[in-house]
């Protein structure tokens, strides 16, 4: 209780510096927050694209449908595979004419159906990775009646690279802004220690423990972090709503991201305060 009172008094003593520290944390976490919203939505878009990641095996003409049926059952038993669909030659032609309407004349004039039958294997949610797709493709290729297997490897790879870059960007930016915010909190706490130099010196004279002396500053750091974090959440949410309404539909980040963000802000504040106060207190002894 004393620590909270002292910490609030600390804010009161240097409101400008306290406000600056809160502002710095808020701005840094706001930027991270924006990236988080972007990353979350890119992620969501990727998983939408991912669900379309499939391995397509084109079959030789005239293959025995019974054999194909057996193969379908076998392939469906692969751990990575969720579902296998057989697309016959006729169905392929029908789909092509439906999807590529500008060529409908060409399709209707055909005497021989040039399109091959195919097996389309959809991968399970956890297996929509380049490795899994490649594994499944290799196994399907081993069937004699399979002429060619395609699974858009490069495309899958590119999607993953993009996701990694976005993730890495958020992490790097977050880290550098966190360092900036920590430095500012450090300065604020150092100023607070200096402002209370006389009191601290008397505390040391009469025999207060270091932990007792340190506590209000740690609470001040924690509160600075938490208030800054909350402000960042409000700013991020406001921006998200604005973009969502005016520009493009977005989805808000999961609640636990917000909780982790706030927890991180609080811890960051406290850690920065702890570091500053430890260094500063060493310099103060009994007069």
């Amino acid at each position, binding site marked *: 209780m004393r620590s909270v009172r002292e910490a609030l008094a600390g804010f009161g003593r240097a409101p400008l510096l306290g406000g600056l520290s809160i502002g710095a944390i808020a701005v840094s976490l706001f930027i991270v927050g924006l990236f988080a919203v972007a990353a979350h939505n890119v992620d969501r878009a990727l998983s939408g694209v991912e669900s379309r990641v499939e391995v397509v095996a084109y079959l030789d003409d005239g293959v025995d449908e019974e054999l194909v049926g057996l193969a379908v059952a076998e392939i469906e038993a692969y751990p990575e595979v969720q579902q296998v669909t057989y697309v016959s030659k006729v169905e392929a032609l029908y789909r092509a004419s439906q999807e590529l309407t500008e060529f409908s004349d060409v399709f209707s004039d055909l005497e021989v159906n040039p399109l091959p039958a195919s097996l389309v294997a959809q991968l399970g949610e956890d297996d929509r990775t380049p490795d899994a797709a490649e594994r499944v493709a290799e196994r399907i290729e081993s069937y004699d009646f399979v002429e060619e297997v395609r699974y858009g490897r490069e495309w899958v790879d590119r999607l993953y690279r993009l996701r990694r870059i976005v993730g890495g960007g958020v992490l790097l930016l977050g880290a550098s802004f966190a360092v900036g915010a920590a430095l500012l909190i450090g300065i604020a706490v150092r100023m607070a220690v200096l402002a209370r130099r006389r009191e601290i010196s008397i505390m040391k004279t*009469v*025999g207060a*423990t270091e932990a007792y002396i340190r506590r209000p500053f740690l609470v001040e750091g924690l509160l600075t972090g938490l208030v800054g974090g909350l402000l960042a959440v409000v700013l991020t949410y406001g921006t998200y709503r604005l973009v969502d309404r005016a520009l493009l539909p977005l989805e808000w980040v999961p609640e636990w991201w917000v909780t982790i963000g706030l927890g991180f802000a609080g811890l960051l504040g406290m850690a920065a305060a702890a570091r500053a106060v430890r260094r500063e207190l060493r310099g103060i002894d009994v007069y």
Partner: protein
Amino acid sequence: MIKLQSVTKAYGRVAHALDDVSLHVAKGEIVFLTGASGAGKTTILRLIHMQTRPTKGEVRVSRFSSSRIKRRELPELRRRVGYVFQEFRLLENLSAGENVAFALECTGSPRAKIGPRVQKLLAQVGLAARARSYPRELSGGEQQRVAIARALATEPLVLLADEPTGNLDERASSGVFELFRRINASGTTVVMATHDAELIRRHPDIRVIELETGSVVFDSAAAGAAP
């Protein structure tokens, strides 16, 4: 209670604030530490309070030794060794009572006990009626009494005083000194640094240790007579 064994304290490379000083202050004793400015009086008090460590030799206070004490043990030592400064060093924004309560709060006294204890301490220094007065409203002598009450808050075994009457007129000075005598009479060891020759002359029964440029040049206990 207090023992300095061949203590040398050097600040920087050249100047020796203390040079091979050995002295012993028994439990319950009262001692004047005297000498010109810069003779080493404050250095001895700071060494006993373990604000600084000797460059050579050892300082022992009760069971604490300067060569073995750990940083985290300092609060415990300082609760047993009270310190009074020449310039009082009260917190200006706190009343007399709050200044004393501050020492009790930050050394972990139970909240319920603080109020009655502050009253008792202020009564002990003759300021029971001034608990609500702020330092600026008190005379120098009264401020020093508040500082003494604060130093007594942790019931120290030893009370160190660095020129406690240095900023006071003669009347206030003798009042504060009598207070130290009473504190000593109740069993607390008192070491008082002073260069007030008149004060020393008026109390020939009190042991005097005189320092000159970092060395003990006279100790009435060893000489068996007053200077």
